[in-house]
């Protein structure tokens, strides 16, 4: 039946478009490598080997995927509600800080998570309220809040939370509050399982609850949602809160689950960038929790392989960020599948 075919193709098409975007990114990345004097073959081989060529590689891939799956969920939930929450970046900082504070007060990983959740909820409120009660576009407000969070967190990290025994990082998460490792000698901890669970919960919320129905309806058509007895303002606030929780957990699990440091490093380098990476993961994952799991693992592989690529092939690891960026831009092109079909036919 015609409708069945269109239902199936509406499912396959987005997946194809993400795959095509990845291919485009890889190809253009190869061109950039060549132009910069590196060997694409050597670089990509090293990348793949480092990411998935060994159990250790896989553990690095999955642990790199963990925080960006969570921050991707933040963006996805907002996108499904029709808004663009770019505030994961700042929320991650506060989530990590809250986890350090809470675990140093109560030496239990659960408290660390609770800290992350509370931080996520609280930091989600300004953007949510500004949007709903003052109509401030969330793209502007969340970016501003990211920077405010950055400097505030930096102050806390260099000041009250500084580690008296180690000038390069903050206080550590005490041993009893750390998340257990899934693989000995790796960096892969329970955090990964938490991220997967979060994705599944997000799926359930969006497609199997009244709240999720209202979020999605508001995202598709605010007028129709209002007509349908839904309060779009309430939907937006919930969207920010749940999104905030995800990113708060991302920050918390990063410090609770990453050996050997178990702290925030100087300049916050080990918790920066997850917000924007998450957005890319979500876009390539078509803003769907299941897609995000796959896309997150893929981007995690890029990150994990990058260090190896730098060592083995001498290519600066920032190269993968270029590929990442190209993939995201490619995903932004509508009808990519149809375009490619047209070009191939010629």
């Amino acid at each position: 039946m015609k409708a069945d075919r269109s239902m199936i193709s509406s499912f396959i098409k987005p997946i194809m478009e993400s795959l095509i975007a990845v291919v485009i990114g890889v190809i253009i990345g190869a061109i950039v490598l060549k132009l910069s004097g590196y060997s694409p073959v050597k670089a990509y081989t090293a990348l793949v080997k480092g990411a998935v060529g060994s159990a250790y590689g896989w553990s690095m891939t999955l642990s790199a995927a963990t925080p960006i799956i969570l921050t991707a969920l933040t963006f996805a939930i907002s996108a499904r509600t029709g808004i663009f929450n770019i505030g994961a970046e700042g929320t991650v900082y506060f989530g990590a800080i809250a986890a350090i504070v809470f675990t140093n007060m109560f030496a239990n990983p659960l408290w660390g998570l609770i800290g992350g959740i509370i931080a996520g909820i609280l930091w989600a409120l300004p953007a949510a309220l500004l949007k709903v009660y003052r109509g401030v576009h969330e793209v502007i407000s969340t970016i501003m809040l990211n920077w405010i969070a950055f400097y505030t967190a930096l102050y806390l990290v260099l000041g009250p939370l500084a580690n008296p025994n180690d000038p390069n990082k903050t206080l550590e998460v005490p041993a009893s509050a750390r998340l257990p490792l899934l693989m000995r000698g790796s960096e892969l901890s329970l955090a990964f399982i938490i991220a997967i669970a979060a994705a599944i919960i997000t799926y359930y919320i969006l497609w199997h609850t009244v709240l999720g129905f209202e979020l999605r309806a508001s995202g598709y058509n605010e007028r129709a949602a209002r007509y349908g007895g839904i309060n779009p303002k309430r939907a937006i606030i919930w969207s920010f809160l749940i999104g905030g929780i995800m990113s708060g957990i991302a920050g918390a699990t990063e410090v609770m689950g990453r050996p050997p440091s178990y702290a925030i490093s100087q300049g916050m380098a080990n918790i920066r960038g997850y917000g924007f990476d998450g957005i890319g993961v979500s876009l390539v994952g078509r803003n769907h929790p299941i897609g995000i799991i796959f896309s997150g693992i893929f981007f995690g592989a890029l990150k994990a392989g990058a260090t190896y690529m730098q060592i083995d092939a001498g290519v600066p690891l920032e190269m993968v960020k270029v590929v990442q960026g190209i993939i995201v831009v490619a995903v932004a092109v509508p009808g990519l599948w149809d375009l490619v079909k047209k070009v191939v036919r010629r």
Partner: protein
Amino acid sequence: MIDMIVSILLGSLTAMVPIVLTSTGAVVSERAGVVNIGYEGILLMSALFGAMFAEMSGSPWIGLLGGAFVGMLLGMLHGAITVYLKGDHIIPGIGVNILALGVVAFGITAIWGTAGQHQVPSNIRIQPIINTPYGGLSPMVLITFIIVFLTHWVLFRTPLGLRIRAVGENPEAADALGVNVERYRFLATVYGATLAGLGGAYLSVDWLGVVTKEISSGRGFIALANMVFSGWNPVRALIGGFIFGFFDNLSVWVRTNPAISQVVPWQFVATLPYIVTIIIVAGIIGKVRPPKWDGKPYKRE
């Protein structure tokens, strides 16, 4: 006292250049109905490439033009996706911002071999035309003012401006009268991105003199906030630009004057531009009205 005022004035004028240029470009683009949130990424990439072109050619002015050129290319990309392919207006901008993070980080290493930061040699930077004991003023400040007034005049007094505004308010009306909606939207988008490119190159080749991964520091978004604050009016964007420039300059100054940290942590002052931006945008809502078809793709039905 006088020296402080003059110094603040000069500093604010200097800082407002990238914001005002980007805002003016954004005003034109959105008046035609195209939203672009990728200016942050454009600022970053044109800062990098502007410095690169300047150093390759030995002239900072070539660097500025190079930055504008990169902006133009990115504007064409955005225009192709949003205007011709009828894509979403927000997502390509996010893509450009993410791409910029990668390109600049990789670029600094690949071009200059340093990690994270590159100092532009001072002989390849724009020299100030006014030099006082309290600070200098770059010719770019004057050029910015000229660009703003010219843009304003074209937008509100000429057929080109009339058509640009028409396609942003009611593209159906313009289309029915034979105005090529796509062409004007595309041109407006490219113009906006080109100005942002100029502003980005200014950061590395003129004012700050460095290329880092964070040289844009949210200015691309502050420029969008300024665009809203100005009511989509280039001349009014000067006012907002000055206010933001004031706080931006303050924040930069504080970092180079550690004595201040005795009184107030420098990080707090660094957050001021962003807090001020939020307050101003929150306050102006309801008093200004965006173009009616801003952000909506147009297809002839």
